[in-house]
């Protein structure tokens, strides 16, 4: 048996278990209590909760009694509707509620879509809480390992920075088609020679300065959204220069939502009072068939 409980780890584990037990004894589980258990569980793994621009409650009352927890990539209106329909009134998301990493409520508060979204949550006794930085802080990063598992490339994956895969060699076209199949989407946009032989693939998002760290070391970089006006143009020029490199762009959802699917088995033991389920965002982009 390989599990090794260190003195520190054991103490922390007991700590989060006790925290969970104490909350159970106090009555119906609230969103705030569930968050306390998440923080305790993270602490047991060595991830200390710190001030974050991103993580925290975004909509609704933290004291709402929970009927169920839905994890997701981003709490879009569609996700909120589906969570509500499934009887889950606590939505835990990885990305923002209001269309910017920082959830700038002051900027959007007069927007009718903002008002409708907040009203929808409040009228149904729901709450939305975001965990971005602290979920990424686990090792291995569950967002990356979740993608690796979905791709069927877990054994090819290295979590060391820059994160990457070393796969059995195939063509760039073959890689792109494989990604389409595994991620169940046609939305795989590529810049590079389709016949390029690919053996190493970086996992670097989302801006060119970061993508470059992978491009310089690996045959291709898999990126979940990147601005086309710089990354695509750099890639075009690199190929024109003769570099045997490529960029493969997928939706942010398809890159990262698998890590929130893995949040479910992770949190379930800590919140036995309520059901927990993942709601897939799918891919927001539809690729129309074309007569080419």
């Amino acid at each position, binding site marked *: 048996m390989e599990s090794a409980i260190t003195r520190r780890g054991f103490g922390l584990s007991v700590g989060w278990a006790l925290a969970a037990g104490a909350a159970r004894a106090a009555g119906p589980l609230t969103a705030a209590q569930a968050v306390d258990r998440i923080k305790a569980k993270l602490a047991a793994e060595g991830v200390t909760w710190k001030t974050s621009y991103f993580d925290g409650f975004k909509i609704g009352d933290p004291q709402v009694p929970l009927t169920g927890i839905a994890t997701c990539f981003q709490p879009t209106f569609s996700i909120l509707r589906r969570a509500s329909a499934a009887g889950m009134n606590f939505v835990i998301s990885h990305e923002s509620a209001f269309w910017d990493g920082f959830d700038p409520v002051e900027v959007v508060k007069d927007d009718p879509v903002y008002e409708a979204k907040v009203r929808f949550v409040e009228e149904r006794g729901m709450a939305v809480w975001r965990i971005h930085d602290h979920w990424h802080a686990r090792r291995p990063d569950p967002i990356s390992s979740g993608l690796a598992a979905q791709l069927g490339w877990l054994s090819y994956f290295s979590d060391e920075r820059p994160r990457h895969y070393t796969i059995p060699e195939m063509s760039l076209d073959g890689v792109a088609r494989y990604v389409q199949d595994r991620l169940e989407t046609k939305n795989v946009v590529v810049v590079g020679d389709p016949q390029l032989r690919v053996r190493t693939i970086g996992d670097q998002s989302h801006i060119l300065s970061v993508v470059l760290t992978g491009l310089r070391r690996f045959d291709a970089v898999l990126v979940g959204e990147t601005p086309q006006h710089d990354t695509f143009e750099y890639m075009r020029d690199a190929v024109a220069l003769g570099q045997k490199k490529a960029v493969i762009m997928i939706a942010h959802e398809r890159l990262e939502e698998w890590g929130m699917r893995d949040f479910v088995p992770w949190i379930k033991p800590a919140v036995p009072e309520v059901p927990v389920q993942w709601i897939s965002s799918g891919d927001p982009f539809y*690729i129309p068939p074309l007569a080419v």
Partner: protein
Amino acid sequence: MATETTGWAIEQILNAAMGFQMSTAMWEGACAGNVHWPMRSAVVCYAPTLEILRRAAAEGKTLVVSREHPFYMHGGLNYPYLTEGLEAALKDDPVVQAKMEIVDAHKILIYRLSTAWDNFRPQAQSTALARALGLSPIEPQPSPRSRGVICDLRRTTLAALAQTAYDRLRARSPRIVGDPNAAVTRVAVLAGETDPKSGLAALIADPKIDGVIAGAGGVIDEVDGALSYFQDVVGAGRGIAMLAVGYGPSEEPGGEELARWMRSVLPDLPIEWWPAPDPSWIPRPRAGG
């Protein structure tokens, strides 16, 4: 033989013609080369790619006027995050060096004219995109200072317009958010990025607008940008969908308009518009597959 002038002199003429719109936006203006080099002929393009610079060198073009920055510094007031650390990351980059070598060897000035052009003709890029797709902006436009334009069109679908984008813009990776087969009769056309979200919200304020044709998202295509907002507009129940034709393909037609205008104020300078093909592709079903 064309009259010889300098980049500096050309800048003064353009600036005066635009009513002194030249902005001090970061990463714009003279980006590579020397404004005091002699200029004999010009090329207008979306992106000053390596291929365009090679061709410019081969054909003796000395001025390249572009929408984007030669070294990928898009900048923009809304999202400096995009260029954070990029300048340092590109130091000693072989791609940048290859472009600089052409610039220096052939005394080519690369001049980025983007914000100033948008300030001067806010709707030029989107109007050019609309016309390239066979659409006509309505007259008068409800918001003349908006970047986007509104077009009425014969009942169609965004799926059909994606084919038009493929055929006419040579857009290789058109994508749709929302129902691709819903009927559209009034669309907002917006070259480039859909950000900022407040701009997109204002552009589609008319409830009769049932479609958007744009280039791409902004800071990051959807999650932290206007496309995630758009998903919620759809999710809130509005019958609207978006066709993203690709950033470059959406901005290319505007280059032709810029070249046309530049010829009118610089009649002695030979000016050509050089569009570049969309470098992206999406794996398509194999024949018989």
